[in-house]
C-alpha cells in the first residue's frame, strides 16, 4: 500500500499530462512565498542507479526527519534522473531551472557531470551545490569561472594528503601504486604521492589500469617485489576484484586504498581477504559518535542497508541548507548571499565538524580507516566495518601547503607529481 503510493507519487503526471505540460506556457510550478524549490540530480536509472538511490535517500531522510522543511521553508524536492551521463545532466539541470524555476540544484555523480553542470549554474545564475562530484579543480584553479557554485563534501585529493602522511608515519619507505586511469585516479594518487614523498617516502611504480578493469591479471605480476606496501585506487566493481586477485596471486603486502576502494558502497559485498586493508575518507559508517550511530541505525532501518558516503554527503548537504536558510530568516536569499551564509557556517555533521574555506570547499575531519570484521551498533552479525584508526582534524583541500603555494602547482595528473623514483 505505501509502496503503491510511492510509485504514484514518483510517477507524476503522464500521457495526457505530458502533452499538456509540454505545451503549457511558462512554468508549471506555482511559486509560493515561503516555498523552497530544490532540484536534485542523480542517476536513478542505468548502471549507477544504486548510487543515485543512496544520494536521494540521504537527502530525503533529512527532509523526512524535519517535516519536509528546511530552515522553516516548505521544500519542494524535485528529483531528476541524469542517467550517469553529463549530457543528460545538463538537460536536466536546465529543465529544473527553466521549467521548475528551482532556487538551487544539487548533485550529479561523476566528475564529468560536475564539470558539465557548473557552467550551467554560471549561465543561468542559479546556485549549484556539488554534493558528490569531487574533481579538484572545481574548487581550485577553475573556481573563478563558477560564481554560483559550492561544494559540500570533498575534493578528490583532500583525504589522500593525510593518508600519504599516515603511510609515511607507519614507516613505509617504498610504495607501488595502482590506480584507475582517469582524472579521479590521478588526483587521488597525486595527493597521496605528494604528501608521502614530501615526508620522505618513495613511490617506486605507478600502474594505470583503465577504468572498469576487472581482470588484473596483466597488472599484478608487474608489481615490484621490493615495495613495502601497495597503494590502490579502485572504483565500483574494480574495488571488489583487485584485493581478491592480489591475494590469490600470493602477494601479502599491506594495501593502502583511496577512499572509493573500500567505501560502504562496496564493502558489504567484499570477502574476508580485505580485513586489515586501510583507506581514507571524510566519512566512515563505523564512526563511533552518537550522531553517526543514530544516523546509521535510522538509515539502515529505513532503507535496509548501511549508509555509504553518498548517503551521508547528501544528508549533510540538506543539513547545511537547513542551517543556511534558517540564518536567512526562512527565505532563500539569492545565490550570492546564500553562498556567503554557507561559507560562514560551522556545522556539526554526521561526519564530524564541517566548515568551509574561501574556495568554497569544506574543511573537515579525515579518517584513516581499517577494515575489520566485528559487530557494531548492536547488530547481531559480525560484518565488515571501516574502523577509524586515526583522525586528522580540520583538513582543508590544501592540506598543510597553504592555498597560494598549492594553487601554484598544476592540477594532479598522470605525470604530476612526476614519478622520480620509478626506474
Amino acid at each position, binding site marked *: 500500500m505505501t509502496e503503491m503510493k510511492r510509485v*504514484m507519487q514518483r*510517477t507524476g503526471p*503522464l500521457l495526457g499530462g505530458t502533452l499538456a505540460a509540454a505545451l503549457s506556457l511558462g512554468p508549471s510550478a506555482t511559486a509560493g512565498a515561503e516555498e523552497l524549490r530544490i532540484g536534485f540530480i542523480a542517476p536513478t*536509472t542505468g548502471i549507477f542507479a544504486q548510487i543515485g538511490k543512496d544520494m536521494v535517500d540521504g537527502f530525503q531522510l533529512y527532509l523526512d526527519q524535519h517535516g519536509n522543511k528546511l530552515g522553516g521553508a516548505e521544500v519542494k524536492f524535485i528529483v531528476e534522473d541524469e542517467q550517469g551521463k553529463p549530457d543528460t545532466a545538463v538537460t536536466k539541470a536546465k529543465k529544473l531551472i527553466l521549467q521548475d524555476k528551482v532556487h538551487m540544484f544539487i548533485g550529479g555523480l561523476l566528475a564529468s557531470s560536475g564539470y558539465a553542470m557548473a557552467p550551467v549554474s554560471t549561465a543561468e545564475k542559479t546556485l549549484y551545490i556539488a554534493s558528490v562530484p569531487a574533481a579538484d579543480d572545481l574548487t581550485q584553479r577553475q573556481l573563478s569561472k563558477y560564481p554560483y557554485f559550492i561544494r559540500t563534501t570533498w575534493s578528490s585529493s583532500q583525504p589522500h594528503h593525510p593518508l600519504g602522511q599516515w603511510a609515511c608515519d607507519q614507516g613505509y619507505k617504498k610504495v607501488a601504486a595502482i590506480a584507475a586511469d582517469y582524472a579521479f585516479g590521478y588526483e587521488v594518487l597525486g595527493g597521496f604521492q605528494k604528501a608521502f614523498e614530501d615526508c620522505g617516502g618513495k613511490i617506486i611504480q605507478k600502474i594505470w589500469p583503465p577504468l572498469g578493469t576487472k581482470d588484473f*591479471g*596483466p597488472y599484478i605480476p608487474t608489481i615490484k617485489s621490493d615495495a613495502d606496501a601497495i597503494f590502490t585506487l579502485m572504483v*565500483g566493481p574494480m574495488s571488489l*576484484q583487485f584485493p581478491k586477485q592480489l591475494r*590469490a596471486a600470493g602477494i601479502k603486502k599491506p594495501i593502502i586504498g583511496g577512499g572509493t576502494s573500500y567505501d560502504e558502497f562496496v564493502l558489504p559485498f567484499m570477502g574476508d581477504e580485505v580485513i586489515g586493508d586501510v583507506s581514507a575518507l571524510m566519512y566512515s559508517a563505523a564512526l563511533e559518535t552518537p550522531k553517526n550511530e543514530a544516523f546509521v541505525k535510522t538509515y539502515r532501518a529505513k532503507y535496509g542497508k548501511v549508509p555509504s558516503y553518498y548517503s551521508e554527503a547528501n544528508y549533510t548537504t540538506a543539513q547545511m541548507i537547513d542551517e543556511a536558510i534558517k540564518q536567512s530568516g526562512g527565505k532563500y536569499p539569492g545565490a550570492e548571499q546564500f553562498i556567503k551564509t554557507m561559507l560562514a557556517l560551522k556545522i556539526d555533521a554526521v561526519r564530524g565538524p564541517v566548515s568551509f574555506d574561501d574556495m568554497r570547499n569544506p574543511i573537515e575531519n579525515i579518517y584513516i580507516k581499517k577494515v575489520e570484521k566485528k559487530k557494531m551498533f548492536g547488530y547481531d552479525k559480525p560484518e565488515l566495518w571501516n574502523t577509524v584508526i586515526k583522525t586528522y582534524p580540520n583538513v582543508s583541500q590544501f592540506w598543510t601547503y597553504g592555498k597560494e603555494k598549492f594553487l601554484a602547482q598544476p592540477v594532479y595528473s598522470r605525470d604530476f607529481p612526476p614519478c622520480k623514483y620509478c626506474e
Partner: protein
Amino acid sequence: MGTQFWVVQAFNGISYGALLFLVGSGLSLIFGVMRIVNLSHGAYFLWGGYIALSVIGATGSWALSLPVAALAVAAIGVAMERLFLRSDGFARLRTALIAVGLGVLGALALAARWGDVTGGSWAGLVMLAAACAAIAYVLLDRIPVLAVETDVLRQVLLTVGFAFLFQQAALDIWGGNNMDINPPHEMTASIVVGGLYFPLYRVFMIGMAIVIGALLWLVMEKTRMGAAVRATVDDAQMARGVGIDTNRVSMFIFALGAFLAALGGVIGGAFLGIYPGLDFEILPLAFAVVIIGGMGSLGGAAIGALAVGLADNFGKALFPEVSYFTLYAPMVLILAVKPTGLFGRE
C-alpha cells in the same frame, strides 16, 4: 621481465580467453546457424550471474547455481527466439505477452495521472492493467506482424530493445549494487609452482572451457543434431530440402547459446563481479572474439577467444596507452580484409 613474467602473463591471458570462449562460442553459434546478431547476449551473461546469486542466496550452493542459472537463461533465450525472432507458431502467445506488458505500463500511467481510478490499491491496479491488456490484445491482434528473419537490421534493433528491457528488469529485480559471486573456499587458493602463484580459480576457468569446448565438439561432430546444425550452417535451404527440421535446429542453438552465455556469467561472476552495465561491457568483447575467429565456427571461437585474451593481457601489460585501440583496430582490419573472420566460411 624474465621468464616468470611471460609465464604468468600467458597463463592469465589464457584463463581470460577461456572465459571469453564461453561467451563468444554461444554468440558465434547463434550467428552461424541463424544469422542473428544477438545484442542481448550480454544480458544473458548478466542474468546468468544474477540468477546464480539468487540461487546461492537461497540454497548456499555454488555448484547448484551453475546448472540452474544456465538452464533458466536458456529457457529465457528459447522464449525470446520462439516468440519474437521466429514469427511462426506462437503468434497469439506473443501478442498476449506484449499486451500484458502494455497493459501494465498503461495502468501505471493511468494510475500516475489519475490516482483515484484504481482506488489506490494493488487489486485496483491489477484490474486496470488487465483491462488495458485486453484492449491492447484486441487491437494488436488485428495488426499483422512481419517476420524479422530476413532482415538483419530489424533483428539487431529488436535484440537491442530486449537488451534494454533486460537491463532495466535486472535493476528492478536485483538492485544496482556491485556484487560478487563467491565460489567455494577451496577454489580461492593458489597452486604454487616454482615460486609462481597460479590461482586455482583461473585453472578452473581453463578446465571448464576445455570441457565445454570438447563437449560442444562431440555434439557437433558425433550426433545427429550436430550434423543437422552443421548442414544448416552450410546451407539452410539445402538442409531443409533434405528433410532437416531447421526450425528445431534453430531453437536448439538459441537455447545452447543462451545456456553458454549464462554459464559464462556464473563462472565469470566470481572473476569480474556482477553489476549493472556488465552486459554492455562484455558484449563488444564477445563480438571481438566472434569477429576475429569467424562467425559460426567453434574452432574459430576458441582461437578468437585465445587471441583476444592474450592480446588484451599482453597489450595492457606492455602497451597500456592504447589498450582500447588494440581491441577495436584489429577488428576493423580483419573485417575489411576477410569479413567472415579468420575461420569463418564464406
